[in-house]
């Protein structure tokens, strides 16, 4: 329909003007991959949120409006690098991410834990207890679990590599099936 077409063109123009005037606080898009549709959101500082479909993308966007800024637009271009690197990761061509990250959605010890996760190499796993040790607080095993469960940047910040000490998979914010898919992908590459 003509009007839909017109609105689409106007929305693109709005995104460009908002970017130009520095008022696009959060840009987002979704990408499809082996773990379903992922929502990617970035501030001007960097990637701020990666969300699985099971987290409910509308609810995630509302959370971003509440916690970061309601100036949110569907604006795929800011996510070009993240999209490309995720594509490469999902095809096994990439083992580490090189993206500016905006950590504002995690704080305190949880943030410390998440910052240590990239030390677990691609294709390897570590126990919650081992990560607690990495983060400098060996007793904080449960806190490591909650840090992983609330990771605002899953896949990119590899909480899927944290498993239980008895070898069991442990939970995952994207669902156990997604965790299994990611670990299998890394084991195969």
């Amino acid at each position: 329909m003509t009007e839909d077409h017109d609105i689409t063109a106007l929305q693109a123009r709005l995104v460009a003007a908002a970017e130009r005037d520095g008022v696009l606080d959060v840009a987002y898009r979704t990408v499809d991959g082996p773990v379903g549709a992922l929502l990617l959101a970035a501030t001007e500082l960097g990637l701020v949120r990666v969300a699985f479909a099971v987290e409910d993308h509308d609810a995630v966007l509302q959370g971003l409006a509440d916690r970061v800024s309601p100036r949110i637009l569907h604006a795929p271009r800011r996510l070009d690098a993240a999209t490309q690197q995720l594509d490469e990761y999902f095809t096994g061509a990439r083992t580490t991410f090189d993206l500016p990250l905006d950590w504002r959605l995690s704080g305190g010890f949880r943030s410390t834990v998440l910052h240590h996760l990239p030390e677990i190499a691609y294709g390897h796993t570590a126990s919650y207890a081992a990560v607690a040790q990495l983060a400098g607080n060996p007793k904080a095993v449960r806190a490591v679990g909650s840090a992983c469960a609330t990771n605002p940047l899953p896949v990119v910040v590899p909480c899927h590599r944290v498993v239980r000490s008895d070898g069991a998979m442990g939970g995952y914010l994207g669902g156990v099936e997604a965790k299994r898919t990611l670990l299998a992908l890394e084991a195969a590459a």
Partner: protein
Amino acid sequence: MDAMSGKQPFEAVVRQHGPTVLRVCRAVVGFTDADDAWSETFLSALKAYPDLPAEANVEAWLVTIAHRRAVDVVRARARRAIPTDEVPDVVGPPEPDHDDDLAAALARLPDKQRYAVAYHHLAGLPHAEVAAILGGSTDAARRATADGLAALRRTYPPKGASR
């Protein structure tokens, strides 16, 4: 999270109200200037959005901003205009799916009636909201809407047009 849920993401505002605001812009400034009016309206709205009270009527707020753009466009056009008996050509080249006759009939209305008809009948704002945007009383807004609609009924569709 629900407990602290405040304003919805601006993208949702654009999707929900974008089409209506575009129809309003086309009605008040004509097809040619409508895209600019829409773009300026939503860019201003995006800038001011964080300060909008959560309980505000978003559509009325957007129409208020669009109205300011429309007034600017109409004023600029009046400055450019050369006095003539002809209706100024505000509708631009014919567009597919676009009713030039209706656009011309709207363009021929006095400004206040055109605004009132668009804001009440296209945006669906109550007369009190229209009055708040145009200034003046609710009764005056209701009268301007009724007079504008009556004038449209006289001039549209044009005599002899087959529909």
